[in-house]
């Protein structure tokens, strides 16, 4: 990393020493997990570059945007509509929550039995190592699970610019009304932040921009249905992770370029893994950068991941926002309609999620499903039991994993996953 970046980080208030440690760990694990893979599509070079510059060039771009008068909105959840931020001339970025950091400091503020994702979000703040968080003009929290909504009460004391979005928990007309009211409140808040009033034109362009990004990802996901799988689950997960950070237009172009390459691979029957490699669908909690633990273990145990039923994956990117609206009101209604379909486990009941898991298992020709639950994530761990039962009734093997971000259970996980792969091979 150049000296220019160091002074940039120092000016943002990052703890340079701690940040060096983080980048060191990130760089090493990227090398061992990503660059060591065989048969990678050439187009992944773009993502290698993005990851090598994830706290460098991309942050500089954001700071340049800020200098030009744009605002940065940071978010932790797929319920925060990027369309609204973009339409008000703001950039939406995902905030870091995929690695343990400053755990001792975090546990002064949060109970130990809080999930790793929430702890991580606090760790990056307390450790002063997340340049996305530090560059954000507005940080959006959201009332999803109890852990998150109570944690935001505490986070509000650590940052000055926290905005908390309420979310419904039932897919009823009342629930829809809550989401609609909250999206209008968010729209007003972003407009107040940027001083830009959202117009029908700016909202339409924003919807088209985000849809283009989703369409590129949909195209990538559809190509994973092929056997041999043309891309590893690790690489596809990375694309889903970078979805939250990158410049939308550049991301779209880069993913489409990879898709062109994958189409050629499929035509030539080339894959990231040999044909007939056991195919796994991952379902459950989000896997934020740099949480590559599970896919790394799965793909070094003789299986390939062909889909992610996850916020960082199909739950987050499924469905486009209708582009047919002409007025701001019509388009806002389309946004509400699109996001109200997200089948997060905070909803009760949440039968759509099970239907999606079964549908994905069939579409991607998965031989088995690994349910990924973060320890202490009550909503997903609760759902994992009926999910397992339903899948087994359909003779789809299912392995429930409960883990966190530490590597202490890597050996045990490897044994279970290898045994699961042996099981589905029969």
């Amino acid at each position: 990393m150049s000296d220019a970046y160091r002074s940039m980080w120092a000016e943002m208030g990052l703890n340079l020493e701690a940040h060096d440690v983080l980048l060191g760990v990130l760089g090493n694990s990227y090398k061992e997990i990503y660059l060591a893979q065989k048969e990678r599509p050439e187009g992944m070079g773009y993502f290698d570059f993005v990851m090598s510059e994830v706290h460098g060039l991309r942050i500089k771009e954001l700071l340049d945007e800020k200098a030009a008068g744009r605002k940065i909105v940071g978010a932790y959840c797929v319920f925060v509509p990027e369309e609204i931020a973009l339409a008000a001339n703001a950039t939406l970025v995902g905030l870091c929550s995929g690695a343990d950091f400053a755990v001792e400091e975090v546990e002064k503020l949060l109970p130990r039995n809080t999930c790793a994702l929430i702890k991580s979000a606090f760790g990056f703040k307390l450790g002063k190592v997340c340049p996305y968080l530090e560059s954000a003009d507005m940080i959006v929290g959201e009332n999803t699970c109890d852990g998150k909504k109570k944690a935001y009460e505490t986070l509000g004391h650590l940052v000055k610019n926290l905005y908390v979005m309420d979310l419904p928990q039932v897919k009823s007309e009342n629930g829809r009304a809550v989401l609609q009211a909250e999206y209008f409140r968010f729209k007003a808040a972003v407009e107040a932040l940027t001083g830009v009033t959202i117009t029908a034109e700016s909202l339409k362009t924003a919807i088209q921009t985000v849809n283009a990004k989703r369409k590129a990802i949909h195209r990538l996901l559809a190509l994973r249905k092929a056997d041999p799988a043309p891309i590893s689950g690790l690489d596809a997960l990375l694309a889903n992770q970078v979805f939250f950070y990158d410049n939308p237009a550049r991301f779209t172009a880069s993913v489409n370029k990879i898709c062109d390459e994958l189409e050629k691979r499929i035509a030539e029957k080339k894959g990231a893994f040999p044909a007939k490699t056991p195919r796994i669908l991952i379902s459950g909690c989000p896997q934020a950068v740099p949480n590559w633990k599970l896919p790394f273990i799965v793909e070094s145990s003789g299986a390939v991941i062909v889909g992610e039923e996850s916020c960082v994956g199909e739950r987050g990117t499924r469905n486009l926002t209708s582009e047919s609206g002409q007025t701001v009101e019509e388009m806002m209604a389309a946004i509400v309609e699109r996001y109200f379909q997200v089948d997060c486990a905070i909803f009760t009941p949440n039968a759509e999620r099970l239907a999606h898991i079964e549908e994905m298992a069939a579409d991607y020709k998965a031989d088995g499903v690994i349910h990924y639950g973060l320890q202490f994530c009550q909503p997903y761990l609760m759902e994992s039991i009926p999910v397992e039962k339903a899948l087994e009734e359909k003779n789809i093997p299912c392995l429930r994993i409960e883990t966190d971000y530490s590597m202490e259970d890597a050996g045990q996980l490897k044994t279970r996953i290898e045994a699961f792969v042996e099981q589905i091979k029969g």
Partner: protein
Amino acid sequence: MGMRRFAGIDIGSRTIELVVVDGAGQVVQSLKADTGFDPLAEARRLLDGVAYDRIMATGYGRNLFEIAFEAPTVTEIKAHALGARAFFPQALSVLDIGGQDSKVIALFDTGKVKKFEMNDRCAAGTGKFLEIMARTLGYDIAAFGDDTLLAEQETTISSMCTVFAESEVTSLIAKGQSRRSIALGVHASVMRRVAAMIQRVAPEGDIVFTGGVANNGCLRALLSQKLGRGVLCPAQAQFAGALGAALLARETV
């Protein structure tokens, strides 16, 4: 051409077992050693002078062995399933309790693994738990189960955690509770934990109990009583994993 021989080695946290089978899958040799602090050195010692055409490794040390001996590996799940099935060809449910984990495996009629669950992040419900409790109560581990069978009543142990259960047992001793009734409480505590896992994962048929802890007659009796199902313990229960690996080495071309 002489008789072909296939070996399986199960490198567990406490012990290493080695089984050699002939071309017909019959056991021709079984050996056992403590794992100690250097599993590979122990494995080498155990293999010294043992003749085999192919070997397959299982157990938590399998990956160490794989690198050192360039041998294929199989997980302890599949190995125990195969071993249990070799002992009892109709088995649909397998319970294995080893030194640092316990696992329940459900099998299809064909013998293939249908589902499994492992308890491996905590000593509760494992051989280690029984070993520590036996020591706290002054028992030799080999006699722990048999003597406990003579208990007339049970003192309930409420702690699942090995560390807390140890202090609970110590305080029960201090209160003058009989050693046997506490020992029965300890066995019942392991039984309840394991029984719940069996009911969840493998609710059908007799249970083939493998691993070192299968030799504990008290635990077998308590499990059978609780579940109303037969609990079958092969004579060489501790060798199930190694046998499974040896049989798989024989099948692999």
